[in-house]
């Protein structure tokens, strides 16, 4: 049954891809087919994987195509199923959204090609999460990379877009090269390519080999997940893609890296040495902090969101790192807690980041710019979008009672409990990581105050923003689905954690949820000694009751006594959009405080007419330096290119030289090759 559902989902996606390619001459039809197929496929996939999480034995499905040399098969075990559910929910919402979003492009762009790659992306994602052997996994992985590449460079007439796409594909390919090596090392040890044969295999290998394979996987998947310092492609590639694609990219595509790590760390490795967990934890902290710090300086709405993806991946990795360390130290329950925190946050991030990107998409479509400084006041023009975006912003800032808070709370608990697990110095890592997580979360909140307030509140800062129009119904519906998801995952935490039982069972042999749920499902507890409890549902309930009991009636009474009035503007003639605080101004204090990292460059040009004290016009421009691009990748690229140019001297055109190459080779071989 599961198999049939899953296969039919695959087939629907495939058919959708082909059909929309065939229909590339009729944009409207292509659009409908694309989104319809994507939606239907997602729903089928959702049904299949939701059932698969709880079905005792993983469903193994052989695919009808593929060549005899390799087997193309998928396996739906709880872990795969969980990621598939994430994919399916997000994909459903996004395809719903796309019904409206793509209408803009009709006639101006080749929607057939778009639909082809869009469905292909969903298809390959589902296969990546379920592939049951290394070869097929890599095939699915690269198909995913390819289709994302074409979707990213969909607007390929812009050079920035092209470069972003190419950068993405190259880095992704380098990453899969590392994975390829690691997989082949495992395969040569096990004699088979099947994941089932890798189970706990890595831990049986010699220590050095174990470590190398671990690092290969970490960086191989890390490229896709956007770990610092392998992240540079992400803030380039995600913003330039069409927004519904960005939602998929940030929401689920980078999660394939997370899935790969989960698969490797908790399936291939038994109890890894402690240092592995430490490394993962450290990298997680670095990614989280740097991601949010760079996000704060961003005024391109979509780039800002992209940087936040790096931050959240970092948070997820903190959970993984803690889980690995606990496992190494032999604390199964804590490991389960940390793993749950990480996976929970994975799902949550898919929800709110998808939501935020869809919201950004609506805004960008309405205002024709990605620059926040040119938006403003949109909450009146597009209320629904604003509300959805607000929900996403609250959720991603980890504020109660929404889903972001729950998973971050679980992460805190894991880190808190970690201190007691060992006597060695490594235990200091947990509190440090915890406090930096707190910093990250607070900065994220600051960043989303900016990201919501600047575009949506106060007065419009440009003509486009002034006559922005609310997104079409399908787009609003798509966003609403995800917003509801955020709320549900927040309030229904105690219900949702049960989903993880099969996964932790499979990965760690522990069923944790019963320990996590307290007070008849009203509250959530970390399951450790005295962890304290949390009840998002309760908090929300109290808010509702209090609101209904006091806020509404009182507000109505007071509103009779309230008048609309102008804003205090120091007596100057009237407030205009120019008086408003800009995003740049908002992030100014942090830019100064962290200037060691940003190395900001600013230039101010003022034109004076009457007197040097009253400039008639001031042009302010400030930009920060992206350290890794400038210090690490730039020099690397230049060095390689310089070397290549020098190598060109080999082919200088003189036939005598060419002959000399052969001659020397011949002599050398005669002297050393032949006589052995």
């Amino acid at each position: 049954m599961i198999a049939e559902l899953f296969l039919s989902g695959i087939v629907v996606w495939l058919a959708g891809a082909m059909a929309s390619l065939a229909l590339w001459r009729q944009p409207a039809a292509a659009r409908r087919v694309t989104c319809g197929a994507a939606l239907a496929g997602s729903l089928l996939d959702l049904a299949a994987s939701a059932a698969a999480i709880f079905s005792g034995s993983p469903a193994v499905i052989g695919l009808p195509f593929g060549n005899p040399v390799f087997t193309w098969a998928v396996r739906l075990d709880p872990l795969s199923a969980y990621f598939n559910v994430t994919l399916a929910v997000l994909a459903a919402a996004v395809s719903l959204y796309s019904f409206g979003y793509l209408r803009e492009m009709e006639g101006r762009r080749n929607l057939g090609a778009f639909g082809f790659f869009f469905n292909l992306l969903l298809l390959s994602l589902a296969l990546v999460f379920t592939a049951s052997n290394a070869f097929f996994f890599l095939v699915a992985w690269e198909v995913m990379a390819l289709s994302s590449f074409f979707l990213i460079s969909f607007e390929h007439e812009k050079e920035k877009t092209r470069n972003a796409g190419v950068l993405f594909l190259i880095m992704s390919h380098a990453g899969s090269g590392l994975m390829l090596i690691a997989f082949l090392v495992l395969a040569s040890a096990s004699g088979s390519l099947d994941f089932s044969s890798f189970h706990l295999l890595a831990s049986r290998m010699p220590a050095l080999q174990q470590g190398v394979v671990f690092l290969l996987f970490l960086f191989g998947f890390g490229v896709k997940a956007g770990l610092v310092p392998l992240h540079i492609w992400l803030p380039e590639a995600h913003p330039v893609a069409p927004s519904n694609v960005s939602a998929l990219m940030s929401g689920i595509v980078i999660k394939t890296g997370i899935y790969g790590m989960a698969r490797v760390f908790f399936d291939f490795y038994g109890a890894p040495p402690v240092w592995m967990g430490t490394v993962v934890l450290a990298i997680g902290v670095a990614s989280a902090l740097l991601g949010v710090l760079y996000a704060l300086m961003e005024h391109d709405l979509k780039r800002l969101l992209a940087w936040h993806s790096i931050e959240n991946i970092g948070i997820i990795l903190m959970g993984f790192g803690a889980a690995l360390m606990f496992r190494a130290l032999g604390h199964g329950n804590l490991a389960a807690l940390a793993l749950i925190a990480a996976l929970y946050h994975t799902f949550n991030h898919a929800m709110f980041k998808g939501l935020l990107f869809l919201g950004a998409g609506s805004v960008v479509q309405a205002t024709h710019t990605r620059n926040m400084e040119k938006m403003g006041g949109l909450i009146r023009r597009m209320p629904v979008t604003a509300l959805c975006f607000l929900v996403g912003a609250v959720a991603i800032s980890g504020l109660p009672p929404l889903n972001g808070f729950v998973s971050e709370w679980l992460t805190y608990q894991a880190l808190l409990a970690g201190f007691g697990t060992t006597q060695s110095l490594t235990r200091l890592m947990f509190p440090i990581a915890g406090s930096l997580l707190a910093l990250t979360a607070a900065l994220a909140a600051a960043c989303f105050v900016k990201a919501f307030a600047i575009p949506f509140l106060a007065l419009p800062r440009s003509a486009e923003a002034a006559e922005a129009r609310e997104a079409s119904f399908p787009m609003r519906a798509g966003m609403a689905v995800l917003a509801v998801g955020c709320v549900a995952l927040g309030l229904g935490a105690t219900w949702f954690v049960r989903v993880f039982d099969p996964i932790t069972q499979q990965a760690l042999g522990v069923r944790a949820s019963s320990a996590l749920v307290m007070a008849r499902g009203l509250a959530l507890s970390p399951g450790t000694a005295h962890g304290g409890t949390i009840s998002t549902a309760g908090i929300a309930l109290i808010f509702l009751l209090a609101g209904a009991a006091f806020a509404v009636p009182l507000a109505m009474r007071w509103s009779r006594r309230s008048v609309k009035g102008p804003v205090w503007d120091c007596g100057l003639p009237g407030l205009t959009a120019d008086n408003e605080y800009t995003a740049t101004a908002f992030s100014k204090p942090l830019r100064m405080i962290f200037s060691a990292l940003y190395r900001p460059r600013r230039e101010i040009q003022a034109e004076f007419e009457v007197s040097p004290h009253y400039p008639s016009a001031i042009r302010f421009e400030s930009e920060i330096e992206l350290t890794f691009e400038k210090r690490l990748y730039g020099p690397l690229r230049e060095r390689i290119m310089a070397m290549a140019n020098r190598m060109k001297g080999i082919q200088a055109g003189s036939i005598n030289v060419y002959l000399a190459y052969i001659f020397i080779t011949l002599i050398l071989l005669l002297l050393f090759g032949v006589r052995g």
Partner: protein
Amino acid sequence: MLLVVLLLVPLAIATASFYVRPRKAMEAVNLVGFGILFLVAVGLAAQVLAAGTVSFANSFFYADSLSSLVILLTSSVALVCSTYAIGYLRDDQQSGALGDNFSPNQQVGQLRMYYTLTPLLVFSMMFMAVANNLGVMWAAMEATTLASIFLVTFYGKVTSIEAAWKYAIIGGVGLSMALFGTVVAYYAGHRLAGSDSLSGLNWSVLAKHAAQLDKTSMRLAFVLILLGYGTKAGLAPMHTWKPDAYSEAPVPSAAILSTALLNCALYCLIRFYILTSRCLGPDYPGHLLLLFGLLSMGISVPFVLVQKNYRRLLAYHTIDHSGIMATALGLGGALGSLGLMLHMAFHTIAKSLLFLCAGNVYQHFRTDQFSEIKGSVIRAMPLTGMVFLMAMLAIIGMPPFSLFQSEFLILRAAFDGGHVLTGVLFVLFGTGVFAGALIHVGGMILGPGGDKPLAAPRPWRNGSLLALAGALVVIGFWVPAPLLELIRGAAHVVSGQ
């Protein structure tokens, strides 16, 4: 019997198109002839699949699944290219690219040269593939060089003469080394069967008694052979002629040279590799092959990275891939040989497709510099652009296209065989080439589009383009069972298992 037909058909084509007058007739002769040749090759493949080996004239002609695979690939490439050539040369004739201020007669003469030399080239490749006697095999190989020189000078430009000269001289030296190697191999084995007896150089005989061959001589022989046929295969550092020759020859010929002829050179290498490894054990030839294979892959990276000319880019790709195949041969074993044979087949399809795409682009834009095209291909010629990009992605080993599978096999052979360094370098160079190719070709095809008008429809060229593209896509998901059988058979011949 089929073996002889296989040789007679191309000869017949050559003579016919040498004597018929009008252009259309020559085209028809070529098209039909190569069609027949393809059928014959398929028939031969069927026979081989049934009987294992086919031999004729007391095994002067001899074909096993290895040679039959090479023949099949060669004939199919020849067929596709002859189809493509019709459209291509007509275009050349109209645009006066055949040589400025040529009279119509001279132009037809040019065409005749092409339509006569190509079958001759094919003929010598066929001969090489069915010859059992290593000496004859060498002679046939030399003949391929001689037949193709004037294809390189086809356009009579200064550069094409230069390219032809380098091709001729370097090829000549290489082949004389190969001949030397053959002589030494003969010496190593001439005491088995009495000297001066013809069968003393027969591969089938030598392979049977490979163990008794004189070891020292085989060492020397293999080195010379490796350098010799390696030159034809374009292994570094004997590769220098390739970019010049490929970028100057007319595109269909370039396609044939870079696929079919490469296969032939590798075929000769494989034959001797089998002898040597049976005589000295796989390590000695294996390590030498790995050395040259990795060197070729490595050397192609910088040239791909900073390449300005897309036809030369393709040439360096061919060098890269001959390196890959040499590595696969060096790794040997069941996996390595299977990977090698699959890769040979897949590469033949993808690379010829690439050259045909390059031909389309060249004839539309009349330049082979990336900088002058700048991302207007997809707009000016959508079909070609799409196929070009696809084929490029395929050739740099992107799934779901088939080359990924063969390279995966080869890599697996490397790691299973404990050649970790080889595997790592393989991946490293692969990534380098990937980056270079993607940057350049991506930048050439995708983009805002220029002033160039939409290209006119070109049935002959795009027809063959689509045929190959279809094959390329399909073969990634499904290889016809008999073909796979043939490939497996060839792999068995190589690995001797």
